[in-house]
């Protein structure tokens, strides 16, 4: 089963450090065999999928909540899975060389393999919940990979920024997916795709669309959230090649494409997606030519490509969907290759500055060839796949139903600026006069060249024989709800408007490249304006968040236990009381039979509580509380709940133990609170007690509700194989709750430990003064 393959991939990730100890430098290459095998398996599924029969792999997860681990392999997920596994194999191979001798290479292998599996899960999962889990896993692994050089402050900062932006979007996405499931009455993407009409007319349509878009836009670095992606270039280059160009940043695009049949086609969808996409496209291309760092150049051109894809989804015609799939594939191939070339340049010359390189084609001819082919595809020159993608893109922009002139203008400007970017990346370092660089450059090892070479070769091959993609593209477009498309990709479409646009773009792009240094100097005047871009907004938001946190810490988390208690109890009283009296007309049952021994136990409890409040010595007060605890245990015994009674007794014992440990450290037991405060505490306590009492009485009156305990009693032995119902509930029927509780317990233990250690480290100073959070938020 594919699911177990993905899950065992995580096991492989965890095993990487041990493999490394055993296999040494070959580990990465050997681990690359795993995704390589996946590629072969996926290729074997190609004929079935292209024949229009998506592969269903069922697997139950939490059927009671409609959550499954079903995998669906259709055209779109096959394409994505092939890219993820294929580029993943090369990236592993490449990283083994790129990071050779790096002390943290095993850690890198762990995270990148975990990422690969999360990403595979994301594109294969059919269930919204499973998709969301994998979605968040990719955000977390991306965070760890951007911050891989964790001693480097900018890297940590960029990692945190990427995480916060994508996870904030993820939160919105979760809300959107829940609304989607409510409106569509299903958690299955395949189901939802068939319910487009009812989804589009649902009252929740607008909020759910906006939430989903927020999630997708942050993940896929759309304007105005694009700023995290260029900063993410602090990651090692294999990561940039893999996560931040070929795979993860396309997750948002993938989700939009998946939801296109369900949510797409409305005015709102078309306008938002085409506008945001076109703006992103232009911003990316424009920002790219301002930079001299080769990775930043490529990162901004990735932003441009992501914008193009979003725009095409927005246009949503059949032609646009064909362009979408073609452009997606073309971009992953050439951008993966170019990033790996950029890594080679960095590795061989010791600099990322394109203006500091030149004439390298003489010492590294193979790399230069690969770079040229990939850059031709980026520029959209025939006969490469990128050319077909760009022509199709222009064609669909011309056919767009909304905002045609605006997006055409933005698309054209983005296209010629991209040509300039392609020329800068591929010509500047390899041609012209040789420059003195930090290291003496020569061809990289084969393992590093293999990936970009294969990807570039594919760009060329698929450009020459685009017909081989007809089946896959056709089936994908059909699944995206754009009709029964019989697709024929071709290199030559005759002389038409797109071709003329391309030619004009080529001339303009070449001009920009020739005068790049001057253009850049001119654009430097805009720097103050750029500094006020969306990233400044992000920084302001973060600063405001820190101030808010400081304020609420001073007000709510002030370190006084009694205030915490008062706030918690009052909130409970308010919430429960509201639900109780205003939302449901509460009925009370006050006719209760009380036996004498029960009354005695209750009397003891009350006496203990009152005594505890009045005692003048600490030990006496604790003893009084103990009396109360033992009376509660007694009550449990009287109502035949031995487990609860035992637990209560043990907790009382433990309290004594803890008290003995802290007894001599506590301040003198003085009457610390003023009469006014005592009155306030009395009111809070009485209100809470009253509310709980009323709640109990109402529960006793509520006989109309079916009793859950009957089910537990009846099924504990036959289904849970146990006679102790409490235990069966804890470890079987409600085990998920227990799992949550023990996690809370573990967290509490860590908290106690941290607090005490922290206090000890501070010496005898009081723990009220805390160090301010440092700038990178750690």
């Amino acid at each position, binding site marked *: 089963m594919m699911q177990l393959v993905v899950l065992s991939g995580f096991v492989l990730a965890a095993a990487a450090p041990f493999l490394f100890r055993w296999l040494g430098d070959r580990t990465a290459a050997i681990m690359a065999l795993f995704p390589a095998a996946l590629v072969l398996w996926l290729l074997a599924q190609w004929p079935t999928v292209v024949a229009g029969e998506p592969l269903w792999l069922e697997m139950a997860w939490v059927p009671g909540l409609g959550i499954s681990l079903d995998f669906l392999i259709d055209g779109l997920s096959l394409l994505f899975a092939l890219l993820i596994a294929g580029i993943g194999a090369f990236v592993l191979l490449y990283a083994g060389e790129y990071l050779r001798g790096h002390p943290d290479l095993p850690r890198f292998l762990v995270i990148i393999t975990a990422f690969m599996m999360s990403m595979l899960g994301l594109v294969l999962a059919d269930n919204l919940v499973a998709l969301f889990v994998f979605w968040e896993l990719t955000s977390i692994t991306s965070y760890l990979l951007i911050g891989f050089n964790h001693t480097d402050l900018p890297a940590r900062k960029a990692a945190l920024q990427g995480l916060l932006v994508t996870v904030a979007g993820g939160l919105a996405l979760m809300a959107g997916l829940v609304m989607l499931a409510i409106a569509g009455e299903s958690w299955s993407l395949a189901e939802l795709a068939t319910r487009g009409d009812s989804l589009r007319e649902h009252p929740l349509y607008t909020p759910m669309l906006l939430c989903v878009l927020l999630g997708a836009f942050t993940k896929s670095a759309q304007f105005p959230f694009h700023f995290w992606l260029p900063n993410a270039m602090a990651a090692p280059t294999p990561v940039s090649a893999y996560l931040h160009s070929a795979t993860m940043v396309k997750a948002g695009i993938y989700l939009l494409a998946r939801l296109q049949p369900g949510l797409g086609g409305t005015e709102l969808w078309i306008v938002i997606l085409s506008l945001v996409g076109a703006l992103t496209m232009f911003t990316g291309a424009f920002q790219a030519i301002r930079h001299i760092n080769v990775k930043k150049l490529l990162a901004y051109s990735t932003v441009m490509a992501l914008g193009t894809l979003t725009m095409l989804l927005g246009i949503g015609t059949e032609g646009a969907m064909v362009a979408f799939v073609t452009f997606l594939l073309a971009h992953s191939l050439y951008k993966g290759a170019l990033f790996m070339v950029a890594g080679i340049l960095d590795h061989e010359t010791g600099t990322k500055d394109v203006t500091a390189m030149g004439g390298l084609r003489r010492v590294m001819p193979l790399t230069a060839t690969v770079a040229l082919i990939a850059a031709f595809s980026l520029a959209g020159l025939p006969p490469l796949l990128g050319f077909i993608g760009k022509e199709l893109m222009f064609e669909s922009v011309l056919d767009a139903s909304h905002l045609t002139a605006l997006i055409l203008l933005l698309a054209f400007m983005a296209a010629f600026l991209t040509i300039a970017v392609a020329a800068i990346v591929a010509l500047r370092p390899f041609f012209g006069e040789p420059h003195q660089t930090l290291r003496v450059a020569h061809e990289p090892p084969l393992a590093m060249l293999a990936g970009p070479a294969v990807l570039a070769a594919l760009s060329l091959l698929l450009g020459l024989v685009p017909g081989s993609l007809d089946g896959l593209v056709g089936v994908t477009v059909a699944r995206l709800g754009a009709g029964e498309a019989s697709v024929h990709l071709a290199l030559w479409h005759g002389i038409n408007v797109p071709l003329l646009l391309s030619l004009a773009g080529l001339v303009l792009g070449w001009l920009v490249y020739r005068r790049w240094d001057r253009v850049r100097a001119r654009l430097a005047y805009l720097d103050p304006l750029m500094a006020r871009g969306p990233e400044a907004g992000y920084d302001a938001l973060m600063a405001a968040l820190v101030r808010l946190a400081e304020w609420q810490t001073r007000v709510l988390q002030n370190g006084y236990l009694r205030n915490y208690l008062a706030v918690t109890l009052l909130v409970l009283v308010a919430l429960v009381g509201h639900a109780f009296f205003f939302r449901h007309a509460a009925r009370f049952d006050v006719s209760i039979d009380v036996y004498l021994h029960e009354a005695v136990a209750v009397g003891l409890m009350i006496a203990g509580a009152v005594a505890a409040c009045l005692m003048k010595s600490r030990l006496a007060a604790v003893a009084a509380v103990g009396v109360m605890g033992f009376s509660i245990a007694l009550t449990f015994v009287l109502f035949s709940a031995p487990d609860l009674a035992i637990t209560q007794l043990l*907790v009382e014992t433990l309290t004594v133990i803890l008290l003995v440990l802290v007894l001599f450290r506590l301040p003198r037991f003085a009457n610390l609170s003023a009469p006014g405060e005592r009155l306030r505490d009395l009111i809070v306590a009485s209100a809470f007690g009253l509310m709980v009492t009323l709640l109990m009485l109402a529960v006793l009156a509520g006989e109309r509700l079916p009793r859950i305990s009957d089910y537990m009693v009846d099924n504990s032995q036959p289904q849970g*194989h146990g*006679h102790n119902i409490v235990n069966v509930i*804890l470890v079987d029927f409600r085990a998920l709750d227990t*799992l949550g509780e*023990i996690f809370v317990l573990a967290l509490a*233990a860590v908290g106690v430990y941290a607090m005490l250690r922290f206090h000890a480290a501070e010496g005898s100073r009081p723990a009220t003064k805390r160090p301010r959070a440092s700038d990178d938020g750690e």
Partner: protein
Amino acid sequence: MVRSGTLILNVAARFLLPLQLLFSVFLLLRGHDEPGGGFIAGLVAAGAFALYLFAFGLRALRAMIRVSPRDLVGFGLLFALLSTLPAWWQGEPFFTSQWWTVPIIDYKASTPLIFDIGVYLVVLGSVLTAITALTETDREHDA
């Protein structure tokens, strides 16, 4: 502040510790059918170690249990999580309980039992973490 206890406490702790631990395992194993279970058993075991701590001090306790209490918490969570997985292997939903019979001694083993062991370890580890951390700060405070 906690120092080694009196002779009576020392002797009692030495003899009570194994008995209490045995009792806690007994409570753990019988928990599914009779009063007991991982939570209660964990508390009993923690009480046993606390007694030992009072009698012989922190260093002796550390030397005896060898693993860090925080590791116990981690292992406990891991056990609890692992107990959810065999169901997948059987093609059943996540967390479905699985029952096996150990051949010769005819004992019922199950994933709920593994889960309960996880609970036991988490409870034991958490309480011990708190107790040892308190003792530790206490000692540093005195120094």
